[in-house]
């Protein structure tokens, strides 16, 4: 039934969006890397040679690792002079001087029959289920506050941050993480991955 499928898509897309937004910006606010959220890091998509398109403030496309490095440099411009080779361990020591505050987000299903990157077995498995093989367009609106930390407490100084604040408009195209969908009990894995990311903070 088409109506039921539509409703299921809407419901599941909202859940996926919530899950993604909560995880993604919590990572950013903790200074943790987010490159694992992009299709580039996923084996299924790697084997299909599918890569994410990331545009930051109108920059030419960059890789997820470069995005992590940019985030790091935004927090503390000194650090990139000694880049870490392992992006997963880069910036945990950096105090959170940049804070993302999300005011709103909304999501649409732009392709309810998404197939790219999936193996025939995976397609077969999820072929009839609505709300699973979705390509989503997620737009997030909020602000980026730039604060300073006093001492080594590492706490974000909101009072100082209010002086420098940018509006944030983040747009993602999300696609299913086939690996997470196929594995039973993989609750902690990202169920959707970023296929396109357009970031604007101004």
């Amino acid at each position, binding site marked *: 039934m088409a109506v039921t499928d539509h409703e299921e898509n*809407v419901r599941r897309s909202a859940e996926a*969006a919530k899950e993604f937004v909560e995880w993604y910006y919590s990572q950013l606010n903790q200074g943790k890397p987010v490159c694992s959220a992009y299709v580039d890091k996923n084996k299924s998509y790697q084997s299909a040679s599918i890569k994410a398109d990331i545009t930051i403030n*109108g920059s030419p496309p960059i890789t997820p690792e470069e995005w992590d490095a940019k985030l790091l440099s935004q927090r503390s411009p000194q650090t990139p002079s000694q880049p870490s080779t392992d992006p997963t361990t880069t910036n945990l020591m950096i105090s959170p*001087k940049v804070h993302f505050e*999300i005011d*709103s987000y909304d999501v649409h299903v732009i392709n309810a029959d998404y197939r790219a990157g999936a193996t025939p077995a995976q397609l077969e498995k999820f072929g009839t289920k609505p709300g699973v093989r979705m390509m989503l367009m997620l737009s997030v*609106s909020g602000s980026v506050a730039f604060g*300073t930390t006093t001492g*080594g407490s590492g706490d974000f100084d909101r009072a100082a941050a209010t002086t420098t604040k940018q509006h944030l408009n983040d747009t993602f195209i999300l696609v299913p993480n086939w690996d997470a969908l196929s594995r039973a009990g993989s609750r902690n894995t990202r169920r959707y991955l970023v296929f396109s990311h357009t970031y604007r903070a101004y």
Partner: protein
Amino acid sequence: MAPPTGPRGGPQRTGGRSSRGGGISKRRHNPLKTDRDGDVTMDAPAAGRSGSGPGARGSRDGRGGRGLSRGSTRVSSRVAQNLRNYAGDGTVASKAQFNRTTLKILGLRSSKVADKPDGGLRTLLDFLERKASKDKQITIGKSILDGDYVWISVHKDDAQNILHLNGFVFTGSPLTITETNERMPNKEEQISKEAAETKQKLTAVVAKRYDPQQKFLDLSALGSDDILSSMGTFDSQNLAEKAFKALVHLASSSYKNSEEKREALQAVSLARNNLNDVDQVFSLAHSLPDLRRLDLSGNNLDSLSKVAKWKYRFRYLEELHLTGNPLVAQENYLVELLQWFPSLQNLNGQQVRTPEQVAAGLRALEPTPLPQFPSNLRDGDANVATIFLQNFFPMFDTDRARLVSEFYDEDSWFSLAAVPNAGRPLEWRSYLKFSRNIQRFGGAGRNPGLMQRLFTGGNLIADMWKALPVTRHPGIDQPGQWLVDCHTFPHLADPSGHGSAMGLIICVNGQFEEADASANLFGTRTFSRTFILGPSKPFPPPKHPYRVISDQLTLHDWKPQAEAAVQAPVVAPIGNPIINPAIAPVPAVAPAVSDEVLKSQMIQELSNRTGMTAEYSMLCLSGAANWNFDLALKSFEETRANLPPQAFITAV
């Protein structure tokens, strides 16, 4: 076992509390206790606890008093208590509670239980609660014994029941109970009275050791201080640390704000205190985080790890003395210290950094917003995005029905999210009822708003748009009004039902004028709007080769900061096709070239991308490109072959 500082229902009272509301059973509950009180009708507290051990000391009623640490001597405990009062916020503000009534009770002193360690207070309170609790259980709130009077706080509805007991005889003594508007004495103030002497002495120490001219607090060689020694401050390590904390608190708490403190107290000496870890004096970093000079010489700090607790504290520390500590014999300790203290210029009397280096280093520690580039249009050779936007916004302003019929079909999705930011007083009513802000939706996927506020199909969208206020968007070629990023992407469903199709995502940031004629409201609103375009369905024959699959509008009323490096427009004027959409046209308004930070970021970015040295990158950006990054990149590509080897960081 709960600590002695527990609430009223704590261990002392378990005997009396175990059967709330049942007056008869309470009396039966623990007959042994009544014997101790010498009053068979009493419902007494747990036996044997009061008066034995340090836990019962220091608090007159034994209820809300602080328990003192076991094992301390009585003198040390008192000093420690006093010190703690000054080190922390010693006094507790007495807040007015509107639903409480304060009552004064006279008569306890002459009762038979007055000899009890708590003055009989607990026994009296139990008596009052039991006698007053006829229709309902009445609980007395705060209570304190002050001189001859017992002060109690009860709920205002319960006050009458207690006042009714006025004249009752309590263990041989008639009680006089009166209501009062006076403020209840504060337990903390009582302790302060006891500790006033300690405070006075510590204040004298601070006064003696503070030099207002030099803005210098000399806490060196505290062990040889007569006053402190006479107070027994150095009887134990614990006490000495508390004394230090109290001294620093006294020295730093007399200023109105942190600026005044920063100005008046710039230097501290902790020399010759036999410190073997700064952990012992850690509170200095809390109380005086903006300290500029610090003397730790002549202590016993034997490695950097013993200073590490202060790592990244004292952001403004310019001068540090560590001579006479074993750690100065270690190699490379300077390197670490320079990292830990970004303002450090002088170590042990030697200059280790110039003020300029410090300034540069501090600047580098500040977070810097990411560089801002003009619109990034990667919409293929057909300039689909440009042409779409040129059509879309004028039509949205003038003829929304036609716009829907041309670009939307029965599968198109539209929703808007209204995010009223603090700032301009624009009316949001027209939008909020449609706002599909999932962040605000409870119940995630189950919220009915998800469906109700999602508009699918051209007809619904057109109807909804009729309800939105009239708008006027600036021309897409207007400078400084738009930021557009777009790119094509694969894997959309092909409308034919076979295979996949290419799509185009367009993210638009801009503003429009709004007129709500019915409410006579006019203003400018900022917005972000994201479109997903995909190929049109073959039937019925479409007007355009592409259609809107998804349209999300976010209204946020953002007021850009004056210094924000928003740059400008990008989309070419109508009728002026873009030759290469990947390269944005020169903005009519030059980017914020006055912004040195932005410039240096662009130089760095260009250098990263091209491998050119910073100098050549700057030349490239500041030349004909006029700080337009894309133009500079383009100009680099064009002139690359002619550039000398020294233009590159690593000559190829």
